[in-house]
């Protein structure tokens, strides 16, 4: 994450000493950012792999456990992230077309607002799971506990589902928080007038990061929330 923001910084100020021209600087920043995103894909990929394997090992348990997630809240959050991606794209576009710093900052503020909204909704989802004892841990499988009653036979598989659920969404939320920090930084840079139609690397790279975080959610939503949506168990 840090190297991303560094790249933005180098681009934002002007040409760094070791580059020949802005074009080389821009291409380097762009390639570097994509290389970073590639590592992010592999990073999340490890957890996607765990999901794939355990879903095949415990298909029933995964359906039941998925059913416990709130599709409405998950869906709203998906829409919220799509909104934020749009505003992010528009923030970059306003820098590209030289509309000055006010539109840039306005779009960034909207992006951050959507990001915060996402996290607030996520907080309430987490809280609900916490209250129902769905946090994976030794208590999860305890006889008489809520998960043990709900999942019965499938409590082991359900525990793995929730382990993966919390690991993936937690990691995703962490990326959102970092993203909001980057957006705040971009607002400051924008206010200082760093971004011009000829050089707006920092904003562009932040945008790539933000869209990537959105991308992860695009896959998490159906995999985690919608998996068991067609099974009607009565809970929720």
């Amino acid at each position, binding site marked *: 994450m840090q190297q991303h923001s560094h790249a933005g910084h180098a681009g934002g100020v002007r040409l760094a000493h070791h580059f020949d021209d802005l*074009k080389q600087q*821009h*291409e380097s920043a*762009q*390639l570097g950012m*994509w*290389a970073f*995103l*590639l590592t992010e*894909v*592999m990073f999340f*990929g*490890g957890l*996607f*792999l765990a999901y*794939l*394997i355990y879903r*095949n*090992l415990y298909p029933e348990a995964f359906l039941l456990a998925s059913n416990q997630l709130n*599709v409405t809240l998950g*869906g709203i959050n*998906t*829409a919220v992230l*799509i*909104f934020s*991606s*749009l505003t*992010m*794209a*528009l923030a970059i*576009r306003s820098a*590209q*077309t030289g509309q000055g710093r006010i539109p840039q900052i306005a779009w960034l503020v909207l992006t951050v607002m959507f990001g915060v909204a996402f996290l607030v909704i996520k907080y309430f989802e987490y809280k609900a799971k916490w209250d129902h004892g769905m946090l994976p841990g030794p208590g999860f499988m305890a006889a008489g506990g809520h998960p043990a009653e709900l999942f019965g036979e499938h409590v082991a598989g359900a525990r793995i589902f929730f382990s993966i659920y919390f690991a993936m969404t937690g990691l995703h939320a962490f990326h959102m928080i970092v993203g909001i920090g980057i957006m705040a930084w971009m607002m400051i840079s924008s206010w200082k007038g760093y971004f011009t*139609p*000829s050089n707006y690397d920092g904003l562009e790279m932040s*945008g*790539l990061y933000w*869209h*990537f975080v*959105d*991308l992860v959610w*695009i*896959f998490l*939503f*159906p*995999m985690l929330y*919608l*998996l068991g*949506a*067609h*099974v009607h168990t009565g809970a929720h």
Partner: protein
Amino acid sequence: MSANDNTHEEHHVVPLRHYFGVFFALIFLTFATVWTAKMDLGVFNTLVALTIATVKALLVILIFMHVKYSPKLVQTMVGASVLWLLIMFLFTWSDFATRGWLFH
């Protein structure tokens, strides 16, 4: 899309209607995926959900993230990341899928 021509791709300004088009497509596909998920399609539930997610991802990558207008190198990297994920998935999954098989 002449990816070799670096000067051309740089600072490509995407028309507003493309952004809004993608945005509405994404919202529409979100509704579609929730709607189809609530139907019992058997094995196709997963297939439909993954297809829709992939289409959404492609829209974001190509338009929002400008990969459609980016140098070939960037496009290669996007492809490589998907390929490497698939390598990891495929080999690991094939272990789990064939563990029960024995020679006779």
